[in-house]
């Protein structure tokens, strides 16, 4: 036990010696992540009213009804997401769609109006979107195609129906005036459609505001990247010392505990520094977290204490990766790839509800996903057993696997 304490002390000593360099690395990471977060939040602002979806409309727009439908939709500037319907030729629309200049293409076949007049259903509007497009853009595009479809076809059906009835009753002279009235009525209804619904904001994910969500994501990504900073402490260069230590009574458990303890302390110190920086930003009023409105920096202090288990868990995961991969280059690449891929799947860069269901479930099950949910709960002040338990289970699992990996390596060395 005494020797175990000495080993931990020695690892702490090593950690403290690299701390100045680490602070510089943390500052650089913080700055890069800060820029990324600012860009993400900026794009979130864009999504709140400034984004414009261009949809190519292919069909004979000289037709008064199709042209009318297009001009109606273009006039809806009060829409939350502005839509731009652009009449164009099929070839032009397709190439624009392939180049990514258009969000979608709506193709209205030439015989559509005749087909509607004579009550046939053999001409269909074709909507083109990219395969697997399941993000916000894709969903909106689909919705907009539906709107266009309704505007163009159902309004036409109504007007043609009215014209037919008027003619059947020998009142053809009134058709023109009634058509104008119907068009104006439709125009009025469409322009006022924003008044037909109320928009309730549920937040980006899990009931968090965009800034609250990305603050949690920032913490997770920062913790994941801290693994790379641990390389001077954890990269294995020689097995001579661990083997000698085992022969002197400090086995795999003691070695892992000593090294992991120092690494976790290092991550906690770096994380505390990052928290202080965020505290300064919050106190300065540069950003506001909706969930903590009017509460000052107190929730941030509470969050730091709450996040400790996540810090320990992700540190244990990174420790295990160092245990499994040898060499400086291999270890760093492994840490980097794992950090980025796990962060992506866990919804650090985009909320996970943008992903297909399988990916979303996988992302939530991964350590970074459990960390995200835990931190989101911490920000909302709603931590439950369901979010806390997986974090502790992962912590024990990673430490257990690290001890096992070290033990196997030492045993392999003994038999060598």
């Amino acid at each position, binding site marked *: 036990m*005494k*020797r175990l304490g*000495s*080993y931990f*002390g*020695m690892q702490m*000593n*090593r950690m403290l*010696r*690299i701390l100045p360099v680490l602070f510089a690395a943390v500052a650089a990471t913080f700055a890069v992540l800060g820029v990324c977060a600012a860009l993400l939040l900026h794009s979130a602002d864009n999504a709140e009213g400034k984004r414009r979806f261009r949809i190519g409309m292919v069909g004979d727009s000289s037709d008064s009804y199709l042209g009318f439908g297009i001009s109606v939709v273009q006039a809806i500037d009060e829409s939350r997401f502005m839509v731009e319907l652009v009449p164009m030729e099929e070839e032009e629309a397709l190439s624009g769609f392939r180049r990514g200049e258009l969000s979608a293409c709506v193709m209205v076949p030439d015989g559509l109006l005749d087909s509607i007049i004579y009550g046939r259903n053999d001409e269909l509007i074709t909507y083109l979107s990219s395969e697997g497009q399941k993000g916000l853009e894709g969903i909106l595009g689909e919705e907009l195609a539906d709107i266009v479809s309704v505007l163009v076809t159902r309004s036409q059906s109504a007007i043609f129906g009215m014209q037919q009835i008027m003619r059947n009753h020998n009142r053809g002279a009134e058709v023109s005036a009634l058509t104008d009235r119907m068009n104006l009525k439709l125009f009025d209804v469409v322009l006022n459609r924003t008044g037909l619904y109320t928009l309730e904001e549920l937040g980006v994910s899990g009931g968090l505001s965009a800034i609250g969500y990305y603050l949690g994501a920032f913490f997770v990504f920062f913790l994941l990247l801290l693994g790379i900073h641990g390389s*001077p402490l954890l990269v294995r260069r*020689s097995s*001579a*010392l661990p*083997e*000698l230590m*085992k*022969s*002197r*009574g400090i086995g795999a458990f003691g070695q892992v505990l000593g090294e992991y303890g120092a690494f976790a302390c290092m991550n906690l110190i770096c994380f505390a520094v990052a928290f202080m920086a965020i505290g300064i930003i919050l106190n300065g009023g540069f950003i506001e977290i909706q969930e903590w409105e009017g509460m000052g920096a107190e929730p941030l202090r509470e969050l730091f204490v709450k996040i400790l288990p996540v810090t320990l868990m992700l540190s244990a995961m990174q420790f295990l990766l160092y245990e499994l991969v040898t060499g400086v280059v291999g270890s760093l690449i492994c840490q980097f790839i794992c950090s980025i891929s796990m962060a992506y799947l866990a919804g650090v860069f985009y909320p996970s509800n943008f992903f297909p269901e399988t990916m979303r479930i996988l992302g939530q099950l991964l350590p970074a996903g459990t960390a995200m949910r835990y931190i989101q709960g911490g920000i909302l002040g709603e931590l439950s057993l369901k979010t806390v338990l997986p974090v502790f289970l992962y912590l024990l699992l990673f430490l257990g696997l690290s001890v096992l990996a070290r033990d196997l390596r030492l045993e392999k*060395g*003994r*038999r*060598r």
Partner: protein
Amino acid sequence: MSIELAGIKKSYGKKKVLENVSLKTGEGSCVGILGGNGCGKSTLLSILAGVRKADGGVFLYQGKDLLLSSSLRTRAVGYVPQGDTLVEELTAWDNLRMWYGKEALKNELNGGVLEMLGISEFLKVTVRKMSGGMKKRLSIGCAVVGNPKILLLDEPSAALDLACKERIYKYFEQYKKQGGILLMTTHDMQDMELCDSCHLLKEGVLSPYEYDGDIHRLARCLQ
């Protein structure tokens, strides 16, 4: 007090490195193990230190097999391997603190083993900046924590200058006088002069060798 190795065996796959290695020596003695490169000298010492596992055999001390009794081995055996077991970015003091308690370390540095090895002179130097001699002395200093009765040395004077060798030999002489047993592998003639007996390890078998200073005869035997 004596030690006895009997029937120690080790194979790497199909290659037999040690076959029935046996040796007996008493307190206050130094045994030199000679042999060509890759003949198994380091393997033998690492087995005795508990770093590697033997395929068979016993290492008897005080009637107990040290290959099986790790707690007694930890107290009784000090081991200085060829490879670096020091932590590069730390100072000599920090490296020693891993093995010594604070008070014990201070005592050893003031009139104890560590003073004899001259470690006080470079206590604040990081291992990275140390010369080969300093590193070797520090490794020995780390190995002799708790004053073990058996010291296993894997080529202790390799690449050291004469002054440094003198210092280490002085300590080894002192260690012997205090009743310690030294077991060292070496290629160095000066090391052999320190030894009370020499053994030649060839084709996995350890046999006594009478070293008379004739290096050509030794070279022929090693071939």
